[in-house]
C-alpha cells in the first residue's frame, strides 16, 4: 500500500476556440497523500475547476484538449480508462462536491432517491438497504430528521442543508478521494462554518483524502494540510498550510493572504492585489503575475520562472521570492 492517494503529473488542458487557444492548465503536478486534505487555491479563471474536472475525467473532448502524463488513484492508473470504467470509479473511488448545490442536484427527484442511486449503482444492495444507508448518510452529515428529509426535493431545503446533501452524496460509498469544488462559496458565514465542520469531520473520521478547491484562504487555513497556490494555469507556490501562511514566499500568495478581511484589522483601507487575472487567451510574456506584482523586474517580464523545489518540500515559482515576513 502506497502513501500516495492521488498523483497527477503534467496535466495540460487547452480549449481551442475562435481567435486562439485558451490554455487553462499548463502542466500541473499534484500529489495527495492518504487521508490528507490538499487545497488548490486561486482566483476565478485560474484553472482550478478545470483541474478538478480533468481529474474526474469529466471534461469532454471537444471542446477541451488535454494531456496528462500520470493520473493515478491509490496506485491505479486512470489515464487510459474507458468512459465505462470511469463511471465505476466516479462515486465509488472518488467523488465530487460541487459548488452550487441547486444545480448539482436533480430538481425533480427527492434527495433520498439521488443518494439511493449511488448505492444502487455501485453496490449490490437492495432498495430497502439502500434507503437505510441513505438515511444514515444524511444523519452523518447532520441533517435533522433524516428519514423525512430524504423525501424532500432540493428546493424544499435551505442552502446549508442542500450542501450537506451534496456532502452525503459524495461520501455515500466512502470514496478514497473527495474533490470539493468551492463547497461553501455560496453560503453565509455561519452556515459556511457549519458545513466546513461537517466536511472536515467526515474527511478525518473516515480517513478520506480530499482535494479542496477554493479562492478563499480563510477556508484553507481551517481545512487543509497542504496548499497549492495556482495562478493562471500554473502552480505558483506549494507548501504546508503552516509554512505557507506564516511565511508566504510568492508575492501572489502574500497578496491573497492580505486581502482576506480580518476582524483584527484596524485599517480603513483594504489591502488589494491590483488588476485582475490575465485573460487566458492573452497571457503576458514572462511570469504571468508580473503585471500585478510589486516586485517585478526586467527578468520577470521576459522569462517565466521554473517551479523550484526548496529543501523543506516547498515549491515556488518566482524570480524574487520574498524573505521571512515579520508582520502580516
Amino acid at each position, binding site marked *: 500500500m502506497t502513501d500516495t492517494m492521488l498523483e497527477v503529473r503534467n496535466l495540460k488542458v487547452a480549449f481551442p476556440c475562435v481567435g486562439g487557444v485558451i490554455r487553462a492548465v499548463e502542466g500541473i503536478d499534484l500529489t495527495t497523500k492518504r487521508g490528507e486534505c490538499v487545497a488548490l487555491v486561486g482566483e476565478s479563471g485560474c484553472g482550478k475547476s478545470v483541474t478538478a474536472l480533468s481529474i474526474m475525467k469529466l471534461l469532454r473532448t471537444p471542446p477541451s484538449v488535454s494531456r496528462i502524463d500520470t493520473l493515478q488513484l491509490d496506485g491505479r492508473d486512470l489515464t487510459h480508462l474507458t468512459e465505462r470504467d470511469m463511471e465505476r470509479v466516479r462515486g465509488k473511488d472518488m467523488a465530487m462536491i460541487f459548488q452550487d448545490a441547486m444545480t448539482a442536484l436533480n430538481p425533480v427527484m427527492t434527495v433520498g432517491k439521488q443518494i439511493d442511486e449511488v448505492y444502487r449503482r455501485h453496490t449490490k444492495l437492495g432498495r430497502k438497504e439502500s434507503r437505510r444507508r441513505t438515511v444514515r448518510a444524511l444523519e452523518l452529515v447532520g441533517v435533522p430528521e433524516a428519514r423525512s428529509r430524504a423525501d424532500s426535493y432540493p428546493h424544499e431545503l435551505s442552502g446549508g442543508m442542500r450542501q450537506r446533501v451534496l456532502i452525503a452524496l459524495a461520501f455515500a460509498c466512502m470514496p478514497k478521494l473527495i474533490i470539493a469544488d468551492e463547497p461553501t462559496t455560496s453560503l453565509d*458565514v*455561519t452556515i459556511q*462554518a457549519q458545513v466546513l465542520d461537517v466536511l472536515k469531520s467526515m474527511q478525518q473520521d473516515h480517513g478520506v483524502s480530499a482535494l479542496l478547491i477554493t479562492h478563499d484562504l480563510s477556508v484553507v487555513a481551517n481545512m487543509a494540510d497542504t496548499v497549492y497556490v495556482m495562478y493562471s494555469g500554473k502552480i505558483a507556490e506549494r507548501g504546508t498550510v503552516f509554512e505557507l501562511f506564516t511565511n508566504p514566499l510568492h508575492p501572489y500568495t502574500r*497578496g491573497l493572504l492580505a486581502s482576506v478581511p*480580518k*476582524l*483584527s484589522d484596524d*485599517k480603513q483601507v483594504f489591502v488589494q492585489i491590483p488588476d*485582475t487575472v490575465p485573460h487566458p487567451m492573452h497571457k503576458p510574456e514572462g511570469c504571468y503575475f508580473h503585471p500585478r506584482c510589486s516586485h517585478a523586474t526586467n527578468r520577470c517580464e521576459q522569462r517565466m520562472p521554473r517551479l523550484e523545489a526548496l529543501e523543506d518540500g516547498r515549491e515556488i515559482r518566482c524570480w524574487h521570492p520574498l524573505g521571512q515576513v515579520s508582520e502580516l
Partner: protein
Amino acid sequence: MSATGNRLHSDPLLEMSGVSVDFPVKRAYPFSKRRWIQAVTDVSLQIAEGETFSIVGESGCGKSTLANAMIGMVRPTAGTVRFQGDDLYALRPRAFKDARRNMQMIFQDPFSSLNPRFTVYDIIREPLYIRGGISEADMQRKVLDLLRLVGLDEEDLRRNPSDFSGGQRQRIGIARAIILNPRFLVCDEPVSGLDVSVHAQILNLLMEIQRDRNLTYVFISHNLAVVKNISQNVLVMYLGKVMEAGASDALFANPLHPYTKALLSAVLDVDVQGSHDRILLKGDTPSPIDPPKGCRFWQRCPFAMKGCRTIPAELTEVESGHRVACHRVSGFSSEQRAAGLHRPVSESVEDEDLSSQAG
C-alpha cells in the same frame, strides 16, 4: 430612540420608525387561513448624512427587505420611512420619483443585475436616459467619466456584460448607481459574489467614491469582518428583528448579543497558529412564517433561558447608542425569576419545539 447616536447633530438623512414588512403567503387552498411572512418587524433606525450604516445577518433575516423599504421599493405594512425629512410613502408620485433619484442600489449578483443584451454604455446611461433632459453628447461624456472613475476603459463601452469578470461587472453596476449623483446608496452584499481577492478592490473603490461625493451608504453583508472598518454604525438582524445595534466601535469592542458573538466567531481567519473556540450555531434560520413567540433567536441560542421562549426581548440601551435585545443583558424581573424563567432551557423541550418549527 436613536439607533445611531446621531453624531452630525443634524437631521438624519433617513429615518425609520417602527417599520414592519409582512408578505402574504400564497394559500395552499382557497379558504385556508392566510399566513404572513414577517420579513421585518418593528425596526427603527436613523442614518446620518455621509455615514456608512451596515446591516448584518444571515440569509432570510430581512436585511434586503429592510433596504428595499428604505428606498421605496417595498411599502412597509407599518411604520414610517422619512427621507430628507419627508415621509417617503406619503409623497405624491412626482415628489416620490424625485426622492427615488437620490437613492440608488448596488446589487449582490453582478451576473443577473446587468442586462446581457445591453452594452456597457447602455447599462450605465440608462438612469440618465430615463430621467431625460440631457443631450446624447453630454450623456456620453458623463458615462465615460464614470467608466474611468470605476477603473474601466473607453474601449469597454461597446462591449457586453458577458465579456467581463465578476469584479468588472460590479464596477459597471457601481457606475450605473452613481450616475444620477444620488445622496443615498444601498449596497446589497456587493462583494459576496466575488473572489476574496477582488473584495478589497471593490470595497476600496466604494470608499473612495464615498469620500469624493459625500455619499451615505447602507451596506448589507453577512460577514462582520467586511463591515467592521468601513461602517460607523452596525445593525445586527435576525429573523426580521434587530438583535443589536450601535456604533461600530462600541459593538465590535463589546458585542453583547449571543447572535452577534456567533456571527463574529463564524468569520474564518487566515491565522493558522492560534486555536479557535467557535460558537457554532446549530441549524438554520427558522422560517419567518410564524416566527418564535419570545426572543426570535432562542432556538439557536446557546444560552437560551426558559423565559426566552415566551417573552420577546426588547431593545434596551446598554451604553450610549448601543442597544441590545437579549434577556441575558436586560435580565428578568423578580417575579419572572421566581417563576423560574431565568433557568436554562432543557434539552428535551428545545428539541421538541425545534421539530415543530421545522415541520
